[in-house]
Every structure is written in C-alpha cells, then in structure tokens.
C-alpha cells in the first residue's frame, strides 16, 4: 500500500529473561517485552520517557513465540501449540495455532529460509493480520 516503514535495531535477551528490542531508526527507543507488559523507553527532551503497555492475551502467544525464537533455548513454548510446517523452494512456513482447542482463533506464521527467520505474522480471528518483516529478509 505504500513504501514500508523500515526500522533498524536488534533483539537481545535481557538479564531478567525479557526480550529487549533496541531500535535505532526512525526513532531511538528500547522496548522490553515481558510476560505481561511491554515497556517502551524513548529518549526525549525531558529525559527518559518510559511507557508501559499491558499485553492483551490475544497477543501474548506472539511475543512468547518471538522470545522463544530469540532465546533459542525455550522451544517448549513453541512445541506446546498445534503446529503445521510447510516448505517449498522459497523457504519454510511454520504455522502455530495459539487459539482455544481446535478452533483456529489466533494463528502465528513464522516464515524463513534456511536458518534465517524472515517474518513473524499474527492472524487474528477478526481478519486482522499483523506482520513484522525482519531487515534483510525479503
């Protein structure tokens, strides 16, 4: 629909196990993704400006999956959901159903090629799709 909004930065695991996203552009911000809250700290003229966002339960599996992927060690979280793996010449797609029993309420699609994660997409029951495409991936 338009030129995508491109951000740059990196993910890491914080000392307390939270997933931390450091963004350099377009704005400098640090996002800490915990179990229940997202903490966003932005540089501002008034000093540190931290905002807290409670994570809705519908989105919790997405962030949980993202944390598991970055950690490499926490694969039990992913294995707990019903899943389906598809692959072709362009790469692979792992679909996790994080909804209630048997009903495809919330689907999380992880796409990649080889050992590179290219995108994470959340498909909501109301038809909304939210997708993060990682830099360098197509």
């Amino acid at each position: 629909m338009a030129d995508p909004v491109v951000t740059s930065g990196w993910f890491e695991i914080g000392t307390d196990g939270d997933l931390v996203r450091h963004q350099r552009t377009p704005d400098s911000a640090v996002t800490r993704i915990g179990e229940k809250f997202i903490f966003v700290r932005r540089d501002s003229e008034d000093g540190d400006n931290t905002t807290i966002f409670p994570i809705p339960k519908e989105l919790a599996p997405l962030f949980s999956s993202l944390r598991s992927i970055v950690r490499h060690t926490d694969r039990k979280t992913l294995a707990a959901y019903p899943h389906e793996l598809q692959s072709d010449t362009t790469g692979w797609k792992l679909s996790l159903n994080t909804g209630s029993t048997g009903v495809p309420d919330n689907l999380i699609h992880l796409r990649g090629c080889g050992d590179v994660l290219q995108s994470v997409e959340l498909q909501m029951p109301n038809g909304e799709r939210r997708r993060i495409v990682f830099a360098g991936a197509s």
Partner: protein
Amino acid sequence: MIRFTVPAAILCALLTFIFVYVEPASDAEAILGPAALDASKIESANDRQLIISLVSEKRETRNKAARAIAGWLATHDLVSGVQSGPEALSSSFMDWVWKRRFRLNPPVDDNLSVESMSDRLAQARRALTQGSGMLIGDRLLRDPTGSFAGIVDRLGETPSGLTQIDGVWQSRDDTAAIVFVTLDDRPFETAETTDLAQQIRARATEFDVESYMLGPRIIAAEISKQTSQAASFAALVATVFLLVWLAWLLRSGRRLLSTFLPLILGIATATVVVQLGFGSVHVVALGFGGALVGLALDYPLHLLSHSAENRRQTERLVLIGAITTAAGFLALFGSGVPALMQTGLFVSTGLAVAAISSRLIVPRDDTVLRAPPMERLAWHMPFKGWVEAGVLIAGITVIASAPAGSVKTLFEPPGHVDAVIARFAEMLPLPSGQHVITVEGENLSALLAREAALRPILDAAVAEGSLGRYSMLGAFMSPGADATPAQRLSGPEFNRRATEALRENGMVPGFAATQTADYLAALAAPEIGPGDLAAFPEMKLIAANVSQTETGWRERVQLFDPKEPRKLSIAVASAKIAGVDMFDIRQKIEAALIDLRNRVAKWLGFGAIAAFAILAIGLGDWRRAVRIALTTAAATVFTAATLTLAGGTLGVFQIVALTLIVGIGIDYGLFLSGAGEQDTDHARYRSVALCAGSTLIAFSIMALASVRILQEVGLTVSLGVIVMICFNLAQPIRRGADAQ
C-alpha cells in the same frame, strides 16, 4: 413462683422471635430522614471503592505483595474488581470501541480536512514502528479522522495519574504499591467488611509490608466496630456494677430478679414491636433502648422502696410517670426520621411494658432497703418557682445564642482514620471528599449531553490551574454523533479527501476505499445504551460513578485538587446547565443536621406539652403538675445550657438524651412532691436515691467510654440526673416542715 415463670416464658418467646426475625439496620438515610435526599444524591455510587497501600522501602517487596494480594482478592467473594497495575484491554472491548468510535469520540469538522487526515496518517505510520504499534494494529491507518487514536489516548491515562513500576501502581512519594479494589455490590455488613480488612492486613504482614486501607465501607466498619466494642464493654461494666450495687441494696435474689425482669421484658417487647412495625430495628433505636435502664429500672425500685400499704398509690405514680415519658418519646414520630421514629416507639413500648410488668412481678414487700439518706440533703430555696422560671429563661437564652454553625457529626470515625487519610493524600491524588458535581439526565444521552456542556467549564478550570483534574463518563464518551457539530461527509467526499491524504503520505490511494467503508460503518453504528456500560469490565470502571435512579441517570463527577471551589461553583451555576449542580458536601451535611436537630427539638417540645397534659390529667392536680413540670424543665434546660457552654451546640443524640432526663425528672418529681399522700419522707427519698444511684452508675460508666456518642449520652444523662436531684431536693419550705 408464677410471678416469675410466666414473665420468663414470655421473655423466652420474645427472645426466640428476636433471634429468628429481628434485623438490625444501620443505614445513614434512616438517621437523616427526608433531609438526606440531597446527601444521598452526593453519597451515591462509589461507596464500594477501596484503596490499599502497601508500604515498604523495597520496591520489589511491595510489588510482590501487591501482585499476590491482588491475585488473592480477585477470587474473594466480597470483591468484584481489583487492579494493582495497568491491565490490557480485551480485544472484544477494543472491537466495540472501534465500531462505536464515532459515538464515543465523534470527529469535528477540523478532523475531516485533508490536512488533518494527512497528519493523522503520518502519525499512524510512525506508531507502527513503535513497540505499541503491534498492540494497536492497523486501525490507526484505517481511521484517518483520529477518532480511534483519541480514544486510545484516553484509555491510556492512568488512574489518579499514578506511575507504575514493573506493572504495579506506585505512590507518588515512591514509598508504596497501590491496589484499587471494588467491593461486591451487596448490602454493607460490618462483620464481613472488618474480616476482609483483617485478612488483607494479615496477608500484608506475611510479605513484611505495612498496609493502609481507605474506603467508605472500611471506615464505616471501623466506626461500627469501635462503637459496638465500646458499647458492649460499657454495658458489661455497668451491668456488673449495677448488679453489685443492687445486690447490696436489695439483699435478695428474688428482689434482684424482680428488678431486672421488667427492664429485660420491656427491651425485648420493644424490639419485637419495632421489628413488626418497621420491618427492621435501627441500631440507634437499639442504642437508646439501652437507655431504658435509666427509667425502666426505677419502676421496680419505687415499688420495692415503698410500703405494701402504699403499694396502690405507688403503682399509680409509676404508671403516670411511664405514660407521661412515653408520650414525650412518641413525639419523635413527628420528626419523620425513621431511626428516631423507631426510637420513639422503642422507648415508649419499653417503658409501658416495664411499668405494667413491674406491677405484676415485683412482690409486695415491707423489707426496708438500704439506701443513702438523701433526705438529709434537702435544702431550702426561697421563691423556688420564680428561681426556676429564671433559670429556665436564662438557659434558653444561652442555648439560643450558641453559634448555629458548630454542628457535630452523628458518628465520629476512629482517631487514626484522619491520619490514614492524610497519609493517602501524600501517596496519591484523592478526589475531593467535600466538593462534587452531580449531573442528572432522564436517559444516558441526556446525561452525556449535559456533561458535554459541563466539560468546557471543567477544562477551563484545569487549564487555569484552579482544578487539578476531573473524572466523569463524559470525558471519555460523547453524547452521540447527532449532538456534535461535525458535518456528515458523504462517502464519495470522504473517499476523495482520504485519497488525497494517502497521496500526500506516499501511500496507495486505493486504500481509501477501505477507510471509506470503515467511516460509513462507524457513522451507522447504533447509539450507546445502558447495556453497553455493563457489558465490559473496562466500561464498568470508566462508568463507576454513574448510577441509575428512579427518574433517570446520575453521575457524581469527581474533582481532584479543587483549589478555587467557590469560583468553579459560580462558573457551573452561571452556565445554568439543567441537571448539573455543584455541592459542598460538608455544608449539605451540616444543613441536614441542623434541620434534623431543629425538627427533633420541635417535636420533642410538642411531646413535652403532651406529657404535661397527661401528667396534669393523671394527677388530677394541675398545680402539682405545674410544679413538677417547672422543676423538670428548669433542670433540663440548666443541663442543656451547661453542656452548650462546655461543648457547643447540642447534637441530635444529646437532645434525645435530654428527653430521657425529662422522663427521669417527672419520675423523681412525682415521688418527691407527694408529701402527705403516701409513705414517709424517708421512703420517698430512699426510693428516688436508689433510682438515681442506679441511673448514675449506668450512665457515668457510659460517659467514660472511648466513643464520642456514648460519652455524650452518658455525660448528658449523668449531669441531668445530678441537676434534677439538686432541683428536686430544693424545697420551697424549710426542711422537716413536712416530715411526719
């Protein structure tokens, strides 16, 4: 034996009825009566709120305690909602907000310009790069009017402007974690509320944090508990002292039993009658029921003190005294205040039953009882009638000239409550407990329309710093698209402007079709109705101060830190918005109490006139009735004036206690003024000395209680009895002249 067994059987039946059916009530409206209408208007919905602060220097410790206590409270029967920090809004609520965004926050003309929509799209694109963008999704892009974004901003505002650390609300002095609790919507029960508070304290102690609680029900429970404990302790001590005193005087278990049985029968019968008449028994009626000790115990003592030969005459005087006093108390019916009407019925019934049952239960007995030789204290007062009339006039002058504004509250919270409120005020901004605005509307739309009219006044006050902030449903929700001045753009026109805004942002113009479809759908969304307020927990919190009344809807607007309430009050009044009023709660309550006091005093005055008429008819001697009435009135007014000089204007309960003094005065007057018609001076004085001693023991112990209401009633009656004795001992002729 039958003298005791029959009354005992009746008493057992009455007690069974009481334990099975009697419901004690403690509602404030029953005390303030019709004058409480305005008070209830401002004391409405939020009485179920409770704030807990968990104090510890260590943030981690207090946050851990807050999470654990909030988790435990969430499953508690008495709790309907609990928040220890910001909570995620449910997707179903956000879907509802999205669909009704134009009802909640309709766009105005400026929001529909190409320039504004273009700016909004740019902001929405940037929001997607932020951590929060993932939570909101694409709706900011699909609504270029900014309506949805505005609602999201409002929802993001924290309660009381608090900060949070690790997802737990923190006090502004960084010493405590804060937990907000909404108690379940059920009738207030002192015991279960006290129990809940104790459980919370115990949990906090387990986590090594100090806990403070603030909420109307917690304070009410503490007042009830403190009053109840003090009253129980005073009653226990008084009973022990009375038993010892009367056992020493009466020297017989039989006589002791015949003294107490009429009193207990009177209280039990009165409780049953009030329950049958009113459907419940108010604690105020029960409290004054205890005051029956001051009179009902006198009747058997009079009968025991006088000789069997004069029994008939003594019974007659007892009956006249009881009926006279009962008439005085029955006048409380005219006050129109349910709790005082109950008190009137309670005391009247109790006195009548005690007087009649004394006649049946107390044995004819010529044993001479021990008693202080009070007749030796009789003294000569020249021109007694004129002196008493002078005291009466001087006393009334003192009472009438007392400052009108110094009104006492009915009940006083425990001393530490003020300290807790002050501590909370340091921790978080509390809504003003004195100044509130109420908005009423015949339906929800009317309520919101009036709040929309009020909003600019409040916003202006906030902007100029005379008001910290405010909280009302109308700040989150608008009265509806129809009531706003925004023009309704046609679909094609909106599409044109959206297309242009998209182009300015380098976005695909075809996306305007999606935006237009969403715009038209939002315009067609149904009006928000009462059902919507109860559909989501989030809305229940936002609409916490909204209540449905018999005539429509009402919201109590909470004002935080009103620095210039008078100025704001004038601004609100000048706007002349129908259904919108600003109150000074303290003034309203004072006015209600003054009105209550005046009505009670007026009706007790009528009661006194009726009592005098009954006294005159009963005695068949109006001169003697005038003498008794004048002495009683002078002593009562002297007591009232002394109390006024010492402690300011009399409270309602003190005025009712003075009615008891009137009853006691008539009782003493009947016996002390009856020289020549009955027993010797010694018997008459002995009889009154026994009664006065018993009353003084009971009420002086009450005066030493730790609760103000008990102190006041105890002091009033004790002082009144002493003054009454002094006036009654004053003889117009020299002592001994009428001795036989």
